[in-house]
């Protein structure tokens, strides 16, 4: 069984290699190959899952060491895999959703001449993401971590001829790199503290290390998670990342890659448990991002960017839960999985809408689409209900648990604050998702012709696109309930992540009621604002908050002024300094010698008599020297 683990990674990797090196011969069949290999990986995952279910809870962890990667004195890094319940969850999510999105992409990318390469990149992403969750040490995790970053870079910038796509790709990679610095430093700290960075030894010897060191490691891991999972303050890339094709947004920037930060925190739970300050930082980051993403999501008119804001916000929930410690880890992962279903479904629905609307993304130019795209409408609607936490659907089960856990944080003021934030977030979520729903599928048609003047002809998407949407909709509806009933999911993960029952500051039924009330209120407000009045095609100027939210609460502007402009000035002045000062000193010396030589050259006037004078003077000096030496 251990040997199958490598196969999980190898299958999509093989696909990536073949598709990227294969050349145009594979243009006709490449997408099928990519999809088949992704599905093969899912099948292997399913086999391993079945095997795992057959074992006792404590014997479910599989490890497999392939070979010694970097053997250096005192520094041993292996290519080793660990498959436990946590990784298994991710493997199934990644390969499952991944396969569906491969399927979807066959239709979505049908007219793109570079479809083969797209599938190559998707396979590369799958391989890297699986490596990330299967790695048995932090360094190998780092490889996967950067690998998904690369795949994300390639896929965001897939339409490279669009300067905005290329810029967005670069931005995503760079912001992620800032997070990577955190991961690097965390690994180095682990190495100096424990002499190793393999999961087992590090996590089991946490007790020996000082709390300060652990807090430092925790904060660095948090920085890494912020980069990858688009948490404040490194969230700015996610909105721009929507420049990529929609399946990419669904797979990478909603369901899987952006949740890697949550995985990292949960995986390193032992470290965070021993460093409460770091945990607090995680919770704060989660809470802030939760509100930040939700507010941004309220103001965006671009359907994908609104969904991106929502993603940010939902991951904020997960990070918040992960920061709560053993009471939250399992819920974080549970929300991660349900979110994977409904958010991927929502994105695919959005893609389907765009597909039918000449790639229009502005929701103000949609309207009344429910009659033209019934399947999309239904699946999107189910996803919508799931995400706002409508009782009974997936999102309700997972989000409600997180809100409960947040109220249970620290029994006191903190519980109230973070519980309140989580509750407020649920309300805002209901508001902006209802807004998206209404603007897209209800109301009157506000369709506009595209740049070439063709009016849109909305139509239902082909089967290859609708089937994945339907499957995901099933997940959106039933997964949460399946997980939550009898604490199945919690029990499944508990051996890895530990679990404690949360004790909220107020009673659980009260919280549940409050949640339902808040989300109904949010939805009602949205209905009042967008459902009962016509939506203007041109966006109104809006309030101060709306304008700020449209601009991502000015975070990009701050980045631009501080980092981009500042950086430009810095590099420009450094280039100047290098040229004038560092080089100038040398060139100045050279010029000085040149000038001196020029002066001295005049002594060489060509007149023999002049030379004779110098000879004579030299002779005189020699005589003088001789006499002096004799005299001394």
């Amino acid at each position, binding site marked *: 069984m251990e040997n199958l683990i490598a196969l999980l990674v190898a299958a999509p990797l093989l696909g990536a290699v073949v598709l990227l090196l294969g050349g145009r011969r594979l243009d006709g069949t490449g997408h099928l190959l990519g999809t088949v290999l992704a599905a093969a990986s899912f099948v292997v995952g399913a086999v391993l899952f079945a095997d795992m279910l057959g074992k006792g809870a404590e014997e479910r962890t599989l490890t497999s060491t392939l070979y010694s990667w970097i053997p250096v004195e005192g520094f041993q890094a292996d290519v080793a895999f660990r498959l436990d319940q946590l990784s298994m969850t991710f493997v199934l999510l990644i390969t499952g959703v991944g396969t569906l999105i491969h399927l979807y992409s066959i239709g979505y990318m049908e007219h793109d001449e570079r479809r083969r390469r797209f599938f190559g990149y998707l396979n590369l992403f799958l391989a890297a993401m699986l490596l990330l969750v299967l790695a048995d040490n932090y360094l190998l995790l780092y490889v996967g971590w950067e690998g998904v970053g690369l795949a994300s870079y390639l896929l965001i910038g897939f339409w490279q001829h669009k300067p905005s796509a290329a810029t967005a790709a670069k931005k995503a990679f760079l912001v992620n790199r800032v997070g990577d610095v955190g991961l690097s430093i965390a690994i180095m700290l682990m190495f100096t503290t424990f002499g190793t960075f393999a999961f087992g030894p590090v996590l089991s010897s946490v007790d020996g290390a000082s709390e300060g060191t652990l807090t430092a490691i925790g904060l660095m891991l948090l920085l890494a998670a912020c980069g990858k999972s688009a948490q404040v303050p490194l969230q700015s890339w996610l909105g721009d990342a929507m420049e990529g094709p929609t399946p990419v947004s669904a797979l990478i920037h909603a369901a899987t890659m952006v949740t890697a930060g949550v995985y990292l925190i949960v995986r390193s739970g032992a470290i965070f448990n021993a460093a409460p300050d770091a945990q607090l930082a995680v919770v704060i980051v989660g809470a802030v991002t939760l509100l930040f993403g939700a507010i941004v999501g309220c103001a965006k008119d671009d359907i994908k960017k609104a969904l991106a804001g929502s993603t940010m916000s939902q991951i904020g929930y997960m990070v918040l839960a992960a920061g709560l410690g053993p009471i939250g880890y399992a819920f974080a992962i549970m929300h991660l999985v349900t979110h994977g279903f409904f958010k991927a479904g929502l994105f695919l629905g959005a893609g389907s809408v765009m597909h039918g609307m000449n790639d229009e993304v502005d929701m103000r130019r949609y309207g009344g689409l429910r009659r033209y795209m019934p399947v999309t409408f239904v699946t999107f609607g189910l996803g919508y209900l799931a995400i706002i936490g409508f009782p009974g659907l997936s999102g309700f089960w997972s989000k409600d648990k997180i809100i409960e856990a947040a109220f249970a944080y620290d029994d006191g003021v903190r519980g109230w604050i973070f519980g309140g934030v989580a509750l407020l977030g649920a309300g805002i979520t209901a508001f902006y998702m209802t807004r998206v729903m209404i603007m897209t599928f209800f109301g009157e048609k506000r369709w506009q012709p595209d740049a070439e003047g063709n009016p849109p002809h909305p139509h239902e998407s082909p089967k290859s696109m609708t089937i994945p949407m339907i499957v995901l909709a099933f997940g959106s509806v039933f997964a949460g309930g399946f997980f939550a009933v009898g604490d199945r999911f919690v029990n499944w993960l508990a051996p890895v992540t530990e679990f404690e029952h949360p004790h909220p500051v107020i009673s659980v039924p009260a919280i549940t009621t409050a949640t339902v009330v808040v989300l109904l209120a949010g939805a009602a407000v949205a209905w009042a604002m967008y459902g009962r009045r016509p939506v203007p095609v041109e966006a109104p100027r809006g309030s101060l908050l709306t304008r700020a939210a449209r601009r991502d609460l000015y975070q990009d502007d701050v980045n631009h002024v501080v980092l981009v402009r500042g950086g430009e000035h810095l590099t420009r002045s450094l280039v100047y300094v290098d040229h004038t000062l560092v080089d100038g000193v040398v060139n100045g010396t050279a010029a000085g010698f040149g000038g001196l030589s020029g002066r001295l*050259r005049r002594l*060489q*006037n*060509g007149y*023999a*008599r002049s*030379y004779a004078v110098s000879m*004579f003077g030299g002779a005189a000096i020699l005589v003088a020297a001789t006499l002096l030496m004799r005299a001394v």
Partner: protein
Amino acid sequence: MNPVNYLYLAALLFTIGATGVLIRRNAIVVFMCIELMLNACNLALVAFSRMHGNLDGQIIAFFTMVVAAAEVVVGLAIIVSLFRSRHSASVDDASLMKL
């Protein structure tokens, strides 16, 4: 009188000759000044010969004369051919020793 005075005289003549070489532009006169310097050296050598009581100084003076004769022959030949080509015997006219 001390025979050292011959040395003083030789030094004086040598200096005058050297200064002449530096001052004059006419190649022939420059040559004469060089001869003057050589003669001054000869005088000193002869005086040394007398002081030390052996003849080696005179031998060297003798060789000096021979070499001076050879040098004059070649030098004057050079001056003549220079004059032929340049219609001038000034040493400053031959200032090609620079870039």
